[in-house]
């Protein structure tokens, strides 16, 4: 029997995502991929995968699973998420560590925060890539598991029949900023707004609407005033471009955006803040702050360094009780050595 993950309860809009499919925007295919690629990478590293392996992206309401076939290492990453075993098993595993699951075990992923969480399995899912990626583009029924969000009864085969990693792993949980100013660079069409419109955009708070999805974050706040027409000749939509339609309410274009659009784009979120934006739940408030290219690149390098340091913190998982005993023992030995030298 193939080792596979069966969906007992599907959660809400759970899809397979990886780091996306660059290179196809010219034919209308958005790059897609994880809304929070930082957290996706952590889930993958915990299970010994390459950073861009396909994992399950979950928000709001977590799904329940049953493992079929063989044993498997899996891990959840994301703020406020944990794995809970279902009866007759008992147990609860926090995020940012991997767990060896046994065949027949049922578990659910509980999600307290509103940002996306990722469930990765060692070796990844045995799903054919579409245009070089496992990311689900639901609007076109493309990629992922049958091009759609998971439903009850889906069975996702794993590539590995049995675990290959020697044991469970953990990493130092990341600490993300909570009430952020999202950094943007003005343009491409900031000249299509009045000075008042620009100062509204950079000075006022906005709230993320509940109508937001993987295509775009709809913002609610004071209307951003256009200087003229808001119907331009359509051009390319960069990731994080902030378009302002006639209503004056900005929309941040995210992973599954339409590749082209004709509303003026007042600014574009810098690459380093896209994962942060992807983590913000509906109802969250945010402000925008304009930065330069140099500041944006510096922020990107800082994020690369943060990721490298989190990756370096991965170590075999130790039970907190055992960990304490070990720490005490080490301290005794060290002080013993120090005593001997004095």
């Amino acid at each position, binding site marked *: 029997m193939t080792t596979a993950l069966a969906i007992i309860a599907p959660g809400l809009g759970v899809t397979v995502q990886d780091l996306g499919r660059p290179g196809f925007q010219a034919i*209308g295919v958005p790059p897609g991929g994880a809304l929070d690629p930082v957290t996706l990478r952590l889930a993958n590293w915990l299970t010994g995968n390459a950073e861009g392996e396909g994992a399950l992206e979950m928000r709001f309401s977590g799904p329940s699973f049953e493992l079929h076939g063989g044993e498997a290492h899996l891990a959840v990453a994301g703020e406020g998420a944990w794995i809970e075993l279902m009866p007759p098993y008992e147990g609860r595993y926090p995020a940012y560590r991997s767990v060896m699951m046994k065949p027949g075990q049922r578990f659910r992923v509980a999600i307290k925060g509103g940002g996306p969480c990722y469930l990765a399995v060692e070796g990844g899912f045995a799903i054919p890539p579409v245009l070089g990626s496992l990311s689900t583009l639901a609007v076109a029924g493309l990629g992922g598991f049958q091009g759609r969000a998971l439903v009850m009864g889906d069975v996702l085969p794993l590539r590995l029949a049995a675990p290959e990693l020697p044991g469970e792993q953990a990493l130092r949980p990341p600490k993300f900023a909570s009430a952020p100013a999202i950094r943007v660079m003005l343009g491409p069409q900031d000249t299509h707004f009045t000075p008042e419109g620009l100062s509204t955009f950079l000075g006022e708070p906005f709230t993320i609407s509940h109508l937001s999805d993987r295509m775009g974050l709809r913002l609610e706040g004071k209307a951003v005033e256009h200087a003229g027409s808001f119907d331009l000749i359509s051009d390319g939509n960069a990731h994080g471009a902030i378009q302002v339609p006639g209503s004056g309410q900005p929309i941040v274009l995210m992973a599954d955006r339409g*590749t082209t659009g004709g509303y003026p784009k007042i600014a574009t979120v810098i690459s380093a803040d896209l994962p942060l934006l992807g983590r913000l739940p509906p109802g969250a408030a945010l402000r925008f702050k304009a930065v330069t290219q140099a500041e944006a690149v510096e922020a990107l390098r800082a994020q690369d360094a943060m990721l490298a340091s989190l990756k370096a913190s991965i170590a075999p998982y130790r039970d907190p009780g055992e960990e304490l005993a070990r720490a005490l023992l080490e301290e005794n030995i060290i002080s013993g050595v120090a005593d001997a030298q004095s």
Partner: protein
Amino acid sequence: MTASSPPAAAWPRFLPSGDAALSVELGDTIDRRISAKVVRLHRHLRGGPLPGVIETLPTFRSLLVRFDPRETAPAALCDALTAIIGAMSDAPLPSRRWAIPVCYDPAFGLDIDEVASLAGMSPAQAVECQASAIYYVYMIGFLPGYAYLGDTPEPLRLPRRKNPRTRVPPGSLAIATAFASVYPFESPGGWHIIGRTPVSFFDAAADEPALLAPGDEIRFEPIAMDTYEALHNAGGTRPRLLGQEAAI
């Protein structure tokens, strides 16, 4: 070129699109000659002459250049792009020309009667008028494989429908203003639906997933319902490539 246009030397114009993309504008109108420049620059950059460039996205009069900001800087890219554009030939682009079979029967062309009546024609005249045009692919956008085709003959140019449909069947040929397109997937849509084609415009498993590319030309060929059914039942069809021509 309109009175407000900057002189030719004003092009290219570079607009920042965040730290990892810039928009290269090569004109300010929807025009086949400007589009040809965009397509030529897109094809040139696909060869990978500029380190750090990840991909390019051609649109009506601009090219979005996506790059890794760790590997290249916008200032250096602008210099390199200005040099490439300055050295680019004005010769016509090699371009493909396709014949796309379309059934204009009102069962498919839900709005054909209304469009014809607004244009002051019979439905048969409207079909003939639309099928006489040689359309040009300005860009692919919105959805995978969704082509913005121009230009629809004057009498058939209508504003978008007041009430967009929530569900347009795949393969529908639709028109609005000067444009036409075929919906590759079922999706909502606000254009006037005048027919349906059995041709598949997007197939992710194909070597070239999108049938059309910017710069291509298209003629629509009216077919009867039974021909449509036969082609459709055969599992869709690849259209006839009429030729590879220097057409722009």
